[in-house]
């Protein structure tokens, strides 16, 4: 499967650099300055010592000034650039952009493709891997700059004496070996460790979620969740611990090599000095250059290790990025006459059974249609296909005879509105909870009227913040649902779908709401999915679904006369209220 392949470094980098080109160019410039400072300080050291040997003339002060300038330059790099600019501006801007790219991506994915467990995991992983993207780009810029720096300093000290070059690789070898070994161990445990981490997050969520908190305090689920969390954690820690032990062993066995690398420069310099191949100023500059070179090389090998690690860490982002998109060519979509479904079938991605099977249906403009049927009969799926949120697996959906598969989603939904069964509870103000249905409308008066309709006692206003998580107030399920109805009607489209719009609303209010539906639906095309068969009567036509098929289609009277499924549903409900 495409989405499981690793994205090549080149593609990832192109993507990352495109997200913040200026930032990375600036990074390269700063890297150059930093490199220059290393050479400056070696040069100044050599000068200082030759002045001292020659008797302390006025030139000593000019060399000292260069020395100080080199210092300030490198401090500027680390303090101003790395610790201030990058951390507080560059990374933050980058994160903001990269998240917006994710948002835009979500917009382009068709809803049925979001329904799979894979997509669920991908979104979460993509979002949490975004910080690593910046670092990944940074690694490459740094690597290039470091190589440049190494070349400059190496050239400079080999001009003192070529023997210096011999010991240089020595300091890089242990770090390189450690890094490769570390990457290998990391790779081996990676899948298990991240899988465990994700499971732990799910368990944690189940402990602290608002809904779970209530339930768990009676069922005692927390004990079990905690136990499972602990098992997963222990598994993960065992892997990490064994990795850390192995690293210790490796490090101890590389000790001598590392040590030779660390003091090799000093040893070589002093030996050359001892043999009178170099003089004191060159000796001091050599030692200095050597130690800064060792540090640079260690940094470089560390960078390579980081590259391997970060490349894996950014993969989830691109896995999400590679999910298929919906596309669409046309910006035109009209609904003047009818919606027609011809032989439509629908299967959820990664599932086998058909949720919809050979649906043929025509809805005329201005009609109100009710859809009834048992749970799992495919009612909500059908509605999603009619709205164009789900693309049929086979067959076609046409608005005014034009297949909507070629229409861009934004154009398609322009005149639609919906109250979904799984309506959203937005943790923003009450007013915005309605306005979110159509932000461009900006009709404060209408919003106020609708709020007053839901909260007659006036204790909730347009600016009341919702969601305890943000210090707002909480509403009952019924109140939330009424808000979602208000939202649906606030967007005055000509085609509105009401999927179980009153499932949490009490009977007195429900009756009033259905009364208002009739008014709101006037002149519009409407689909109501409901179990309230009494409410179904207001529809022009009733459709009965069973196992993904339309089995009955007609008016209330016609269907009762048919004495089929609708009639039996009706009888069951009537029995509950009979005297």
């Amino acid at each position: 499967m495409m989405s499981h392949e690793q994205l090549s470094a080149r593609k990832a980098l192109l993507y990352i650099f495109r997200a913040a080109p200026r930032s990375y160019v600036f990074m390269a410039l700063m890297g150059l300055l930093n490199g220059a400072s290393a050479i400056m300080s070696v040069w100044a050291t050599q000068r200082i010592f030759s002045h001292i040997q020659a008797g302390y003339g006025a030139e000593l002060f000019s060399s000292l000034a260069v020395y100080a300038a080199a210092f300030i330059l490198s401090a500027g790099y680390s303090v101003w650039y790395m610790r201030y600019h990058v951390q507080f501006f560059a990374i933050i801007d980058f994160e903001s952009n990269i998240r917006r790219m994710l948002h835009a991506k979500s917009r382009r994915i068709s809803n049925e493709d979001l329904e799979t467990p894979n997509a669920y995991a991908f979104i979460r992983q993509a979002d949490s891997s975004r910080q690593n993207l910046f670092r990944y780009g940074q690694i490459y810029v740094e690597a290039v700059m470091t190589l440049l720096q190494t070349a400059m300093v190496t050239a400079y000290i080999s001009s003192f004496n070529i023997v210096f070059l011999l010991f240089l690789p020595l300091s890089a070898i242990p770090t390189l070996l450690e890094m490769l070994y570390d990457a290998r161990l990391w790779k081996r445990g990676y899948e298990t460790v991240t899988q465990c981490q994700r499971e732990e997050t799910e368990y944690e969520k189940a402990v602290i979620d608002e809904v779970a908190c209530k339930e768990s305090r009676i069922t005692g689920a927390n004990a079990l969740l905690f136990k499972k969390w602990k098992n997963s954690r222990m598994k993960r820690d065992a892997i990490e611990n064994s990795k850390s032990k192995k690293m210790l062993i490796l490090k101890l066995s590389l000790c001598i090599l590392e040590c030779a690398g660390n003091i090799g420069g000093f040893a070589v310099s002093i030996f050359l000095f001892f043999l009178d191949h170099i003089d004191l100023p060159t000796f001091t500059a050599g030692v200095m250059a050597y130690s800064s070179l060792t540090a640079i090389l260690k940094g470089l090998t560390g960078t390579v290790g980081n590259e391997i690690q970060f490349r894996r860490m950014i993969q989830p982002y691109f896995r999400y990025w590679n999910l298929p998109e919906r596309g669409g060519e046309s910006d035109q979509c009209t609904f003047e006459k009818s919606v027609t479904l011809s032989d439509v079938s629908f299967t959820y991605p990664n599932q086998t059974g058909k949720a919809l099977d050979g649906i043929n249906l025509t809805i005329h403009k201005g009609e109100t249609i009710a859809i009834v049927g048992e749970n799992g009969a495919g009612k909500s799926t059908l509605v999603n296909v009619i709205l164009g949120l789900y693309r049929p697996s086979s067959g076609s959906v046409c608005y005014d005879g034009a297949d909507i598969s070629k229409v861009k989603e934004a154009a398609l939904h322009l005149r639609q509105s919906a109250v979904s069964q799984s309506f959203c509870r937005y943790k923003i103000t009450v007013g915005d909870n309605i306005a979110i249905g159509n932000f461009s409308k900006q009709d404060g008066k209408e919003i106020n009227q609708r709020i007053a309709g839901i909260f007659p006692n006036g204790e909730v206003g347009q600016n009341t913040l919702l969601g305890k998580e943000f210090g707002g107030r909480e509403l009952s399920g019924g109140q939330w649902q009424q808000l979602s109805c208000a939202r649906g009607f606030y967007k005055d489209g000509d085609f509105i779908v009401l999927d179980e719009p009153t499932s949490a609303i009490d009977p007195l209010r429900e009756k009033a709401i259905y009364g208002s539906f009739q008014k709101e639906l006037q002149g519009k095309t409407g689909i109501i999915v409901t179990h309230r068969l009494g409410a179904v009567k207001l529809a022009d036509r009733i459709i009965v679904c069973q196992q993904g098929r339309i089995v009955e289609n007609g008016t209330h009277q016609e269907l009762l006369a048919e004495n089929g499924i609708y009639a039996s549903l009706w009888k069951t409900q009537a029995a509950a209220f009979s005297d």
Partner: protein
Amino acid sequence: MELRTYLSRYISWKEYVPYLLIAAVTGSIPAVTINLRGDLIDGAAGGGNQGFFIGLAVFMALSLLQTVCGAVMNRTLERHRIRQSARLDAARLEKASKIAFPVTETERFHSLWQSSADAPELDAQIFAASGDIVNLFVKLALSLFALWSMDAWTAIGIIFLLTIGILLNRTLARKTDGFWVKYRENMRRTNYFSSLLMQREYAAERKIFSFDDEIDRRYRASFSNAKQENAKLGRGRFQIEAVMQLLFAFYGVMIVLLLLRPLMSGTITIGLFTSAFYAAVGLEQSCKQMYAAVYDLIGSVHRIGGLSSFLNLEEDTPAKGSFADETNEGIEFCDVTFTYPGMNKPVLEHISFRLEPGRHYALVGENGCGKSTLVKLLVGLYQPDSGEVLVNGKPVHLLLPADRRRLFSVVFQDFYQYPLTIRENVSLCMDVPADDKMLDSVFDRLDFHPMAASREVGYDSDLMPLYKTSAGLSGGEWQKMTVARCVLSTAPIAILDEPNAALDPIAEAKVYEAYRGLLAQRMTLFISHRLGSVRMADEILVLKDGALIAKAPHEKLMVECDYYAELFNTQKGMYV
């Protein structure tokens, strides 16, 4: 938090002391080599003798020792990090699972949960920083001593710079304290907007209502807010660091000038001068590292305070009287009044009634009339402002959490989809998980046939949403599962709060029939909108605007309670 409090509470001395000791040994080595290195340089300059090679060998041996110590320190730190982070995370999660229910409904709970999340990372920082501080302290002290013996002024100059640096750093730590918390708070909002634009639960409405642009605008506004707060933190830090860097540059020049004096007067040789010069350059690095370590330590200790605030949140139920047995002698509400925190009007006022064991009750009323609150009071999740809720004659809020599930089983209107297997999900209220036969029979009676269970793993198939193989259940299926959980529980009191909201009428009829059979022996309390479903109850409690207005069987209510009759007839119109 105080450092001392932290150390005594969270640090194991068996790990801490050896770590600090190795750190001290590692720190002493560079100081010891100053004079040795000076002699080596002089030896090399002077043409050398036997001592030169011995010195070189000793020098290398010391360097080897330092490398070994470094590796061991690294491993000790890693081991501590792994163990301690598991310990802290576990403490945090265990605490979260025990926090009193009303507290879990507050913003404080969620924000402390988030701000305590980086406790393990902070702990590792504290551990590493204290090692660094010991290491650097020894290094600085011994090096200063060596320099002092060459030239007192050089040492004094360094001490002066060090002191200024430490003072500056303390200001820095203090200045930047509150910003981090603010940044987090701001980001919480930003993250929420981001989830609206990205998460799948908002996908349908996002597309139908195309609210992307406006929410994106808010996302950016909120992000830039957070960024500005964050930039303040950065600026404060930068200003101080810039001053320090200038000091260091000055110091670099001064050290050469200071050392020139003893060199001129012949107190030190050129070798010692060179070695001291290196040492001084090294000291400058050490000073920087020392500041960073002190800064890390202070900042981390301060920020880890989030964890202790979280661990100090109020816990569920004081461990007083226990009701270990599963008997039920009835529930009594005695003049109960309850107000939500921050609200001025009570949700429930002067509620009194008694429920007898083994009988079936229903609770009806409109949205927001206090039905769900009454349930929470009944099971002891809330404590009344006044009056008492008694179970078996004892106040229910004194019930031990573990005993709650022996007495009550509740099906809530909104239920959590636990990331557990089907079997575990259903067996939550049981001491021993149910076997396949029990599950088969209960599921049959509820007409619940999850597709997932037909696979090889059967009822052990996991409902964790992350797995590719995870068995997705529909909302209705989840609800049936929570009903099955209630049925399998042996608790004598069953409460069903709107258990049928997601069920269709036929399923509802089946489920109700099943309830009646399965729960016949227990006291039941049904809360429902669908009056047709609850009329079979022995008695119906009618709640209106926070007051209990009637408690009688259906037939009697139809005659005596106008409000109930209106509710019933209205609904009849909706269904029939």
